[in-house]
């Protein structure tokens, strides 16, 4: 049973971390992110010559007195960035059993990012795709939204439910979307949706969860089975292991390249290899724009 106590270390770890938008946001709702709209708020940006139609209240009369010309003050508008996190709760995320490291790491990252966004004033929501039913928390700014999210992520990974429908639904409700998955399901559909979302101006973060056991499979385990497709069994002989490592690395590289080419921020995370704060900081720190954040 997930509770606030379960995620308390995460909430503590992310305190003080910001998650700035990668671009100016379009929203008109005041918030923490730089908006494309320039208004008359107290944050001065520049003067502009008065044009007919401007409100006389924006005229800087002191400047008129000094320069004998009429200027109006322009200020930077700030807006919120509605954020939705999409979590994959398929059976492959339950690896390795019974600790479910991938899923535990994914939902902690989800709660951590949600808290980072929420504490800065962004509406934040959540979608958990699970065969028992997709759990959705609409983007909100109130504090109780975190409790709703904690409740939503309280599931056991199972099944092989496609993530694309949940992502498509989330895309309509946010300007920033973060997908936390292992991409072992409908990766192609997700990539297509991601391209559409980025093209429409959205900010897309792709968080690829890979376990150490997938990067370096236990050599003592000779026969391996796909948890989502039990009929898929392959033996892991030493030659097969070398080929597996080569194929898996190539697939990860291709995946990262495709997502970055699509304009998303691709980040690969490995559970239990770094602190949660470090992981959240890596995910939220801008590093030169979309698609350039390095993964592992």
């Amino acid at each position: 049973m997930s509770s606030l106590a379960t995620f308390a270390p995460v909430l503590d770890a992310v305190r003080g971390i910001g998650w700035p938008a990668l671009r100016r946001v379009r929203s008109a709702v005041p918030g923490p992110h730089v908006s494309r709209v320039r208004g008359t708020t107290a944050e001065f940006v520049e003067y502009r010559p008065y044009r007919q139609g401007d409100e006389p209240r924006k005229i800087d009369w002191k400047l008129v007195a000094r320069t004998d010309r009429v200027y109006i003050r322009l200020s930077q508008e700030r807006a919120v960035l509605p954020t939705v996190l999409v979590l994959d709760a398929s059976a492959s995320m339950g690896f390795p059993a019974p600790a479910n490291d991938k899923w535990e790491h994914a939902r902690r990252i989800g709660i951590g990012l949600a808290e980072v966004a929420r504490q800065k004033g962004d509406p934040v929501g959540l979608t958990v795709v699970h065969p028992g039913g997709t759990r959705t928390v609409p983007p909100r700014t109130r504090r109780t939204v975190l409790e709703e999210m904690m409740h939503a992520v309280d599931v056991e990974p199972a099944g092989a439910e496609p993530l694309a429908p949940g992502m498509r639904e989330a895309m309509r409700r946010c300007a920033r979307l973060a997908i936390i998955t292992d991409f072992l399901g409908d990766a192609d559909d997700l990539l297509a949706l991601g391209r559409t979302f980025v093209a429409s101006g959205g900010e897309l973060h792709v968080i690829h969860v890979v376990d150490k056991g997938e990067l370096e499979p236990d050599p003592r385990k000779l026969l391996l089975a796909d948890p989502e497709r039990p009929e898929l069994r392959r033996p892991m002989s030493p030659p097969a292991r070398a080929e597996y490592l080569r194929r898996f690395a190539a697939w990860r590289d291709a995946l990262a390249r495709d997502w970055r080419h699509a304009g998303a921020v691709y980040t690969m995370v490995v559970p239990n290899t770094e602190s949660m704060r470090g992981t959240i900081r890596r995910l939220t720190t801008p590093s030169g724009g979309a698609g350039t954040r390095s993964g592992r």
Partner: protein
Amino acid sequence: MTFLAPVFFYIGLGVAAGAVALHFIVTRQPASSPLPTVRFVPTSSVRVTTVAPVPEDLLVLLVRVLIALLLGAAFARPVLTPDRRPVARVVMADVSRAVGSIAQVRDSARALLGPRDVLVAFDSAARTVRSGAADSAARLTRTEREGRLSPALIAALRAAAAMRDEADSIELAIVSPLRASEVDASTQAIRALWPGRVRVVRVATGADTLPPRAGLAIHGAADDPLAFAAAAAGIATSDSAVRVVRGTASAADSAWAAGGRRTLVRWPAAGAPSGWVARATVDTVGAVIAGEAALVFPLERRWALDTATHPTRVVARWVDGQPAAIDRAVGEGCIRDVAIGLPARGDLVLRPAFGRFVRAIGTPCEGVAGGPALDEARVSALAGSGPLAASGAVRPPDVTATPLVPWLLGAALALVLVELLVRRGSAPLWSGASDDARSARDTGAAA
């Protein structure tokens, strides 16, 4: 129970131990572990060989061990060893026509025979009785055949060889009147093969086995050359058990022969006795032989034995093997037909060879002839001296009967079929396809 070739049983034990060891080594599909990225593992099959803590497929193992042990035991040729006893006996009981009283032979043999002893009843042939010898001895009957010790001794040696594991010593006893005619040239050599003394129990000789009166009573013309030759040979007599009829034999002559141990020789001076037919071509083959007497002379051969005639014995043959004289049993005696024409002139009858030939033709028939008793010196040599034959000194049999072998092989064959059914029923074959969800495994102890 002992094994004639125990090395095969040890090999069977080794094979069984190997089967047990192999059943600890199993080849199976390992238990699968989850890995979400298994799709990146290349497709192949896998089996691993491990040492199981307990043998796999106990029923199959049991059947295989039994097969190995049964085959090993069968090839080792098991024989059941009876309890040893101090002395075992082989009793040779004479049932030939030389025996005067078969009851005496029965009593003597039964007195000697104990449980599991062997009886060898013999006349001209020997019959070995291993089971219920005493009871068989009580039912012995006298035959009309001559007795022969040599085949009986050989049968006794074989019987003793089969008994060498049953007793410490083996005693050979001979219950017989021991006539001289029962001993031949090989008897003493065969006797020498017996490594101990022989108990000789002599029984009364039958009166009808005593030698008949010697000589030839020739019924023919006064100037018959045969009569002259018999007289010259000193065997002519008027009262003999052998009558030579030179003419046509009468019913009285036949009745005379059938009424006692007598021999009627039908040797017509002209023509041939009944049962002979004229030859298409008369020839001279040059010689005729009767027993050890050979008569070399160009005698004309005019008659041949009718194919419908069934002689008891051929007494004389032409040099090319054709019969010249035959015996036929009649009642207690016999009739001898001689189809040899004598020349009307010449000195043949004066020759000593002809006299020997007539003597041979004039000997009583084998069935009615008697003979003297075996002399004491030869009896003593037959009995020998010293201790009983030690069983170890008796030559082991060349072939030891192992009645258990076919049963063991049959049981092993049946178990092979059972093993096939058990293996198919309990351990379905696993194809080894890695994507196959089956987890059945196959034991690695397959042969």
